[in-house]
Protein backbone atom coordinates (compact mmCIF):
# COMPACT_ATOMS: atom_id res chain seq x y z
CA UNK A 1 0.00 0.00 0.00
CA UNK A 2 1.80 3.08 -1.22
CA UNK A 3 -0.84 5.74 -0.76
CA UNK A 4 -0.25 6.76 -4.38
CA UNK A 5 -2.15 9.83 -5.42
CA UNK A 6 -2.02 11.16 -1.85
CA UNK A 7 -3.75 14.53 -1.83
CA UNK A 8 -4.84 16.66 1.10
CA UNK A 9 -7.12 19.63 1.40
CA UNK A 10 -7.69 21.87 4.41
CA UNK A 11 -6.10 23.25 7.52
CA UNK A 12 -7.31 24.11 11.01
CA UNK A 13 -9.50 27.15 11.36
CA UNK A 14 -12.92 28.55 10.74
CA UNK A 15 -12.37 30.35 7.48
CA UNK A 16 -12.41 29.33 3.85
CA UNK A 17 -10.61 26.05 3.15
CA UNK A 18 -10.44 25.37 6.87
CA UNK A 19 -11.94 22.80 9.20
CA UNK A 20 -12.08 22.34 12.95
CA UNK A 21 -12.48 18.70 13.99
CA UNK A 22 -14.24 17.61 10.80
CA UNK A 23 -15.85 14.19 11.10
CA UNK A 24 -17.65 12.62 8.15
CA UNK A 25 -17.90 13.18 4.46
CA UNK A 26 -19.96 12.19 1.46
CA UNK A 27 -19.01 12.37 -2.21
CA UNK A 28 -21.94 12.79 -4.59
CA UNK A 29 -22.06 11.34 -8.11
CA UNK A 30 -20.75 14.63 -9.52
CA UNK A 31 -17.71 14.36 -7.28
CA UNK A 32 -18.71 17.16 -4.95
CA UNK A 33 -17.50 16.60 -1.41
CA UNK A 34 -19.74 17.28 1.60
CA UNK A 35 -18.12 17.49 5.03
CA UNK A 36 -19.52 17.73 8.54
CA UNK A 37 -17.24 20.37 10.07
CA UNK A 38 -18.12 19.53 13.63
CA UNK A 39 -16.54 22.13 15.83
CA UNK A 40 -17.37 24.91 13.38
CA UNK A 41 -21.03 23.83 13.60
CA UNK A 42 -21.39 23.90 9.85
CA UNK A 43 -21.40 21.69 6.81
CA UNK A 44 -19.12 22.37 3.87
CA UNK A 45 -19.35 21.50 0.20
CA UNK A 46 -16.50 21.76 -2.26
CA UNK A 47 -16.37 20.78 -5.90
CA UNK A 48 -13.20 18.77 -5.52
CA UNK A 49 -9.96 18.44 -3.58
CA UNK A 50 -8.80 21.89 -4.70
CA UNK A 51 -11.51 23.48 -2.58
CA UNK A 52 -13.12 25.14 -5.58
CA UNK A 53 -16.73 26.11 -5.01
CA UNK A 54 -16.30 26.35 -1.23
CA UNK A 55 -19.79 26.66 0.25
CA UNK A 56 -20.87 26.45 3.88
CA UNK A 57 -24.14 26.25 5.75
CA UNK A 58 -24.71 26.65 9.45
CA UNK A 59 -23.83 28.35 12.66
CA UNK A 60 -24.09 27.18 16.25
CA UNK A 61 -27.57 26.76 17.60
CA UNK A 62 -30.63 24.60 17.57
CA UNK A 63 -32.84 26.40 15.09
CA UNK A 64 -33.14 26.18 11.35
CA UNK A 65 -29.84 26.35 9.50
CA UNK A 66 -28.05 25.81 12.79
CA UNK A 67 -26.03 22.90 14.09
CA UNK A 68 -24.57 21.79 17.38
CA UNK A 69 -21.81 19.34 16.71
CA UNK A 70 -22.71 17.89 13.30
CA UNK A 71 -21.15 14.44 12.91
CA UNK A 72 -22.73 12.31 10.21
CA UNK A 73 -23.60 13.46 6.69
CA UNK A 74 -25.30 11.73 3.78
CA UNK A 75 -26.64 12.94 0.45
CA UNK A 76 -29.50 10.98 -1.12
CA UNK A 77 -30.14 10.42 -4.80
CA UNK A 78 -32.35 13.54 -4.90
CA UNK A 79 -29.45 15.61 -3.58
CA UNK A 80 -31.02 16.14 -0.17
CA UNK A 81 -28.54 16.42 2.67
CA UNK A 82 -28.97 14.55 5.97
CA UNK A 83 -26.94 15.50 9.04
CA UNK A 84 -26.75 13.99 12.53
CA UNK A 85 -26.07 16.35 15.39
CA UNK A 86 -24.59 15.07 18.61
CA UNK A 87 -25.30 18.25 20.53
CA UNK A 88 -28.92 18.67 19.45
CA UNK A 89 -29.70 14.92 19.45
CA UNK A 90 -31.53 15.19 16.17
CA UNK A 91 -31.19 14.53 12.49
CA UNK A 92 -31.91 17.25 9.99
CA UNK A 93 -32.55 17.17 6.27
CA UNK A 94 -32.31 20.00 3.81
CA UNK A 95 -32.82 20.17 0.07
CA UNK A 96 -29.48 21.75 -0.68
CA UNK A 97 -26.70 23.97 0.69
CA UNK A 98 -29.07 26.93 1.08
CA UNK A 99 -30.87 25.08 3.86
CA UNK A 100 -34.16 25.15 1.95
CA UNK A 101 -36.65 22.55 3.08
CA UNK A 102 -35.02 22.32 6.51
CA UNK A 103 -36.63 19.46 8.44
CA UNK A 104 -35.58 18.23 11.87
CA UNK A 105 -36.44 15.12 13.86
CA UNK A 106 -35.43 14.20 17.37
CA UNK A 107 -34.98 15.26 20.93
CA UNK A 108 -32.78 13.80 23.62
CA UNK A 109 -34.03 10.54 25.07
CA UNK A 110 -34.32 6.84 24.50
CA UNK A 111 -37.87 6.57 23.20
CA UNK A 112 -39.38 6.90 19.76
CA UNK A 113 -38.20 9.95 17.82
CA UNK A 114 -35.44 10.41 20.37
CA UNK A 115 -31.69 10.05 20.20
CA UNK A 116 -28.77 10.15 22.58
CA UNK A 117 -25.69 10.97 20.54
CA UNK A 118 -26.72 10.09 17.00
CA UNK A 119 -23.46 9.65 15.14
CA UNK A 120 -23.90 8.39 11.61
CA UNK A 121 -26.67 8.40 9.06
CA UNK A 122 -27.28 6.32 5.94
CA UNK A 123 -30.20 6.45 3.54
CA UNK A 124 -30.92 3.32 1.53
CA UNK A 125 -32.23 3.11 -2.01
CA UNK A 126 -35.81 2.97 -0.71
CA UNK A 127 -35.29 6.20 1.21
CA UNK A 128 -35.24 4.58 4.64
CA UNK A 129 -33.02 6.38 7.11
CA UNK A 130 -30.60 4.49 9.37
CA UNK A 131 -28.89 6.11 12.36
CA UNK A 132 -26.38 4.84 14.91
CA UNK A 133 -27.76 6.08 18.23
CA UNK A 134 -24.57 5.64 20.19
CA UNK A 135 -25.49 6.30 23.81
CA UNK A 136 -28.67 4.30 23.40
CA UNK A 137 -26.56 1.43 22.00
CA UNK A 138 -28.96 0.91 19.14
CA UNK A 139 -29.57 1.27 15.44
CA UNK A 140 -32.64 3.25 14.46
CA UNK A 141 -34.40 2.98 11.13
CA UNK A 142 -37.30 5.14 9.99
CA UNK A 143 -39.19 5.43 6.76
CA UNK A 144 -38.79 9.17 6.44
CA UNK A 145 -38.21 12.40 8.35
CA UNK A 146 -41.55 12.13 10.16
CA UNK A 147 -40.19 9.19 12.11
CA UNK A 148 -42.82 6.87 10.63
CA UNK A 149 -41.89 3.22 10.82
CA UNK A 150 -39.55 3.88 13.75
CA UNK A 151 -37.68 0.61 14.35
CA UNK A 152 -34.77 -0.04 16.68
CA UNK A 153 -32.30 -2.83 17.17
CA UNK A 154 -29.90 -3.11 20.06
CA UNK A 155 -29.28 -2.68 23.72
CA UNK A 156 -26.17 -2.21 25.79
CA UNK A 157 -24.05 -5.29 26.29
CA UNK A 158 -21.72 -7.77 24.70
CA UNK A 159 -24.13 -10.42 23.46
CA UNK A 160 -25.93 -10.96 20.24
CA UNK A 161 -28.00 -7.92 19.38
CA UNK A 162 -26.05 -5.75 21.78
CA UNK A 163 -23.69 -2.85 21.26
CA UNK A 164 -21.08 -1.02 23.30
CA UNK A 165 -21.87 1.79 25.71
CA UNK A 166 -20.79 4.70 23.57
CA UNK A 167 -18.81 3.26 20.70
CA UNK A 168 -21.26 2.89 17.83
CA UNK A 169 -20.21 5.01 14.92
CA UNK A 170 -20.31 4.44 11.18
CA UNK A 171 -23.22 2.71 9.46
CA UNK A 172 -23.54 1.43 5.91
CA UNK A 173 -26.28 -0.53 4.17
CA UNK A 174 -25.02 -2.62 1.29
CA UNK A 175 -26.82 -3.09 -2.00
CA UNK A 176 -27.87 -6.51 -0.71
CA UNK A 177 -29.51 -4.78 2.26
CA UNK A 178 -27.08 -5.96 4.89
CA UNK A 179 -26.37 -3.45 7.63
CA UNK A 180 -22.76 -2.84 8.67
CA UNK A 181 -22.04 -0.97 11.89
CA UNK A 182 -18.79 0.19 13.46
CA UNK A 183 -18.91 -0.51 17.18
CA UNK A 184 -15.85 0.47 19.21
CA UNK A 185 -13.26 -2.23 18.49
CA UNK A 186 -15.29 -4.33 16.07
CA UNK A 187 -17.62 -4.22 13.13
CA UNK A 188 -21.03 -5.87 13.11
CA UNK A 189 -23.05 -7.10 10.16
CA UNK A 190 -26.72 -8.03 10.25
CA UNK A 191 -29.10 -9.03 7.51
CA UNK A 192 -31.93 -6.75 8.60
CA UNK A 193 -33.42 -4.87 11.53
CA UNK A 194 -34.45 -8.11 13.25
CA UNK A 195 -30.76 -8.75 13.88
CA UNK A 196 -30.79 -11.94 11.82
CA UNK A 197 -27.39 -13.09 10.66
CA UNK A 198 -25.57 -11.29 13.50
CA UNK A 199 -21.87 -11.48 12.64
CA UNK A 200 -18.97 -9.61 14.23
CA UNK A 201 -15.32 -9.14 13.39
CA UNK A 202 -12.56 -7.57 15.44
CA UNK A 203 -11.16 -7.26 18.92
CA UNK A 204 -9.45 -4.37 20.69
CA UNK A 205 -5.85 -3.67 19.72
CA UNK A 206 -3.51 -2.61 16.97
CA UNK A 207 -2.64 -5.97 15.48
CA UNK A 208 -4.19 -7.82 12.58
CA UNK A 209 -7.88 -8.29 13.14
CA UNK A 210 -8.00 -5.55 15.76
CA UNK A 211 -9.39 -2.04 15.96
CA UNK A 212 -9.37 0.86 18.40
CA UNK A 213 -12.26 3.24 18.14
CA UNK A 214 -13.62 2.43 14.72
CA UNK A 215 -15.10 5.48 13.01
CA UNK A 216 -16.54 5.34 9.53
CA UNK A 217 -17.28 2.22 7.54
CA UNK A 218 -17.86 1.92 3.80
CA UNK A 219 -18.72 -1.15 1.77
CA UNK A 220 -17.90 -1.24 -1.91
Amino acid at each position, binding site marked *: *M*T*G*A*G*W*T*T*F*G*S*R*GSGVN*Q*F*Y*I*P*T*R*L*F*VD*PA*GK*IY*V*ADRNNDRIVRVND*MTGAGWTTLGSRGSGANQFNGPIGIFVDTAGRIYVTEGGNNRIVRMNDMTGAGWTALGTRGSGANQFNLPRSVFVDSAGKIYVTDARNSRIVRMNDMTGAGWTTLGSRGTGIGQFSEDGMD*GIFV*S*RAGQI*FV*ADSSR*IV*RINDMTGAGW*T*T*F*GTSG*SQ*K*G*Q*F*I*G*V*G*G*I*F*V*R
Partner: protein
Amino acid sequence: MRTAGWVVSAVLLTVVMGASSGSQAPASGPRIFIADSDSNRLVRIDDMTGAGWTTLGSRGAGTNQFFTPDGIFVDAAEKIYVVDTDNQWLVRIDEHDGGGLDHLR
Protein backbone atom coordinates in the same frame (compact mmCIF):
# COMPACT_ATOMS: atom_id res chain seq x y z
CA MET B 1 -23.34 -46.81 -17.07
CA ARG B 2 -22.98 -43.75 -19.22
CA THR B 3 -25.45 -41.86 -17.10
CA ALA B 4 -23.73 -42.86 -13.87
CA GLY B 5 -20.37 -41.76 -15.28
CA TRP B 6 -21.80 -38.39 -16.23
CA VAL B 7 -23.15 -37.92 -12.72
CA VAL B 8 -19.78 -38.76 -11.19
CA SER B 9 -18.06 -36.32 -13.54
CA ALA B 10 -20.54 -33.61 -12.71
CA VAL B 11 -20.00 -34.14 -9.00
CA LEU B 12 -16.24 -34.00 -9.45
CA LEU B 13 -16.57 -30.86 -11.54
CA THR B 14 -18.68 -29.25 -8.86
CA VAL B 15 -16.15 -30.13 -6.19
CA VAL B 16 -13.25 -28.78 -8.27
CA MET B 17 -15.06 -25.57 -9.09
CA GLY B 18 -16.07 -25.13 -5.49
CA ALA B 19 -12.51 -25.53 -4.33
CA SER B 20 -11.30 -23.13 -6.97
CA SER B 21 -13.72 -20.35 -6.17
CA GLY B 22 -13.06 -20.84 -2.47
CA SER B 23 -9.35 -20.27 -2.93
CA GLN B 24 -9.72 -17.04 -4.85
CA ALA B 25 -10.06 -13.63 -3.29
CA PRO B 26 -13.65 -12.48 -3.65
CA ALA B 27 -12.64 -9.64 -5.90
CA SER B 28 -16.11 -9.34 -7.32
CA GLY B 29 -17.81 -9.03 -3.95
CA PRO B 30 -18.06 -5.88 -1.89
CA ARG B 31 -15.15 -5.14 0.36
CA ILE B 32 -15.24 -3.37 3.68
CA PHE B 33 -13.29 -0.16 4.30
CA ILE B 34 -12.85 0.97 7.89
CA ALA B 35 -11.41 4.08 9.51
CA ASP B 36 -9.56 2.56 12.47
CA SER B 37 -9.48 5.96 14.09
CA ASP B 38 -7.47 5.56 17.24
CA SER B 39 -4.94 3.32 15.50
CA ASN B 40 -4.47 6.09 12.93
CA ARG B 41 -4.92 3.80 9.96
CA LEU B 42 -7.34 2.59 7.31
CA VAL B 43 -8.23 -1.08 7.11
CA ARG B 44 -9.69 -2.96 4.19
CA ILE B 45 -10.99 -6.50 4.41
CA ASP B 46 -12.68 -8.74 1.86
CA ASP B 47 -15.37 -10.05 4.16
CA MET B 48 -16.43 -10.53 7.76
CA THR B 49 -13.80 -13.23 8.33
CA GLY B 50 -11.12 -10.54 7.97
CA ALA B 51 -9.69 -12.14 4.84
CA GLY B 52 -7.50 -9.84 2.77
CA TRP B 53 -6.58 -7.72 5.82
CA THR B 54 -4.80 -4.65 4.45
CA THR B 55 -3.87 -1.45 6.27
CA LEU B 56 -2.54 1.98 5.39
CA GLY B 57 -1.24 4.61 7.74
CA SER B 58 0.53 5.49 10.92
CA ARG B 59 0.23 8.50 13.20
CA GLY B 60 1.50 11.76 11.81
CA ALA B 61 0.84 14.59 9.42
CA GLY B 62 2.86 13.50 6.41
CA THR B 63 2.18 11.31 3.43
CA ASN B 64 0.56 8.01 4.39
CA GLN B 65 -0.04 9.31 7.88
CA PHE B 66 -3.23 10.04 9.75
CA PHE B 67 -4.23 11.56 13.07
CA THR B 68 -7.56 10.06 14.15
CA PRO B 69 -9.09 9.47 10.72
CA ASP B 70 -12.87 9.26 10.99
CA GLY B 71 -14.92 9.61 7.83
CA ILE B 72 -14.29 7.32 4.86
CA PHE B 73 -15.90 7.21 1.41
CA VAL B 74 -15.01 5.26 -1.71
CA ASP B 75 -16.25 6.80 -4.94
CA ALA B 76 -17.21 5.14 -8.23
CA ALA B 77 -13.66 5.59 -9.50
CA GLU B 78 -12.46 3.73 -6.39
CA LYS B 79 -10.71 6.74 -4.97
CA ILE B 80 -10.74 6.74 -1.20
CA TYR B 81 -11.67 9.94 0.62
CA VAL B 82 -10.88 10.29 4.32
CA VAL B 83 -11.66 12.93 6.89
CA ASP B 84 -8.43 13.06 8.87
CA THR B 85 -10.06 14.65 11.85
CA ASP B 86 -7.20 15.75 14.07
CA ASN B 87 -5.09 16.87 11.11
CA GLN B 88 -8.10 19.04 10.21
CA TRP B 89 -8.02 18.06 6.55
CA LEU B 90 -9.36 15.75 3.90
CA VAL B 91 -7.21 13.11 2.24
CA ARG B 92 -7.81 11.41 -1.08
CA ILE B 93 -5.84 8.44 -2.29
CA ASP B 94 -6.09 6.23 -5.34
CA GLU B 95 -7.38 2.76 -4.84
CA HIS B 96 -6.41 1.42 -8.23
CA ASP B 97 -2.94 2.81 -8.64
CA GLY B 98 -0.89 -0.27 -9.42
CA GLY B 99 0.75 0.01 -6.04
CA GLY B 100 -1.98 1.00 -3.67
CA LEU B 101 -4.41 -1.06 -1.71
CA ASP B 102 -4.75 -3.61 -4.48
CA HIS B 103 -1.01 -4.08 -4.64
CA LEU B 104 -0.99 -6.09 -1.44
CA ARG B 105 -3.97 -8.26 -2.17
